[in-house]
């Protein structure tokens, strides 16, 4: 797809953000659930590790605290993928992109470079998020 095709602008971030706030209020009201995402990566990592070394995962303190299971938050995180897919494909704003525009301007078009940085950045970010408990 050509970059010259003007992408639709989307909604005001104030409006979309406020609606997300209303959604949180309803979620807390009806189900008592507060939103979050980072615990899901712990549970998913526990699942994968358990398939390889079940005895070890069964003894690890953090996996006892945050057991590998599919819970509300796990489905919430998966839902985010589908919600974005629906919103973007129905508004002509979906675009396959391996290297973000701003990244490319600074670090060049190498996919490998971007992949390595994203992987390392992701590992660091989740470690910090879990340490801060947020």
């Amino acid at each position, binding site marked *: 797809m050509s970059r010259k095709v003007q992408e639709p602008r989307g909604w005001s971030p104030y409006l979309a953000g406020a609606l997300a706030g209303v959604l949180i209020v309803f979620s807390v009201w009806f189900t008592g659930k507060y939103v*979050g995402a980072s615990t899901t990566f712990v549970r998913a990592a526990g699942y994968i590790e358990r398939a390889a070394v079940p005895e070890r995962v069964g003894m690890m303190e953090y996996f006892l605290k945050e057991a590998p299971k599919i819970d509300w938050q796990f489905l919430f995180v998966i839902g985010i993928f589908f919600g974005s897919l629906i919103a973007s494909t129905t508004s002509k704003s979906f*675009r396959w992109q391996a290297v973000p525009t701003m990244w490319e301007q600074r670090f060049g078009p190498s996919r490998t470079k971007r992949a390595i940085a994203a992987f390392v950045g992701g590992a660091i970010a989740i470690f910090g998020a879990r340490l801060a408990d947020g």
Partner: protein
Amino acid sequence: MNELIYGLVTGIIFGFLFQKGRVLRYDKQIGALRLLDMTIVKFMFSTILVAMVGVYLLKDLGMAKLSIKPTILGSNIIGGLIFGIGWGILGYCPGTQLGALGEGRWDAVWGILGMLVGAALFAEAYPALKASVLTWGVYGKITIPEVLGINHWFVVAVFVAIGMLMFRWFEKKGL
């Protein structure tokens, strides 16, 4: 089972709003960290202000309980700094990168894989962290109104006022 369906539906609507608000992309996330484009801050603060008012209203009506994370200065501060470094490199958040993938930004796959590895490493490090960083400056489940000994609506009002001033400043500066 019901709980899982609620989770999925809530996530779908969230992801929809994230995409419509244009907050998922690397350029928007890093644009905020570089103080060039405050789109994600506008989104987040709008969400926080609305949810803050609504949830405290529910609490006062006895219809909801707050979910308060414990304050541990050591792990909150150090964890926050580590998160910021990783976020600045990756350019996606733990939750939003699934949404970035949903709109075709597939470098998020590397971030997701990195996060699975990082979470596994955290689980390995947890016993050592629990004996050190997680014991530094433990204050338990405290809130700002409790600490200040004032009614929570004063604090909510101050946050709303700060948010409005910030929004006005963003619009004035064209951020």
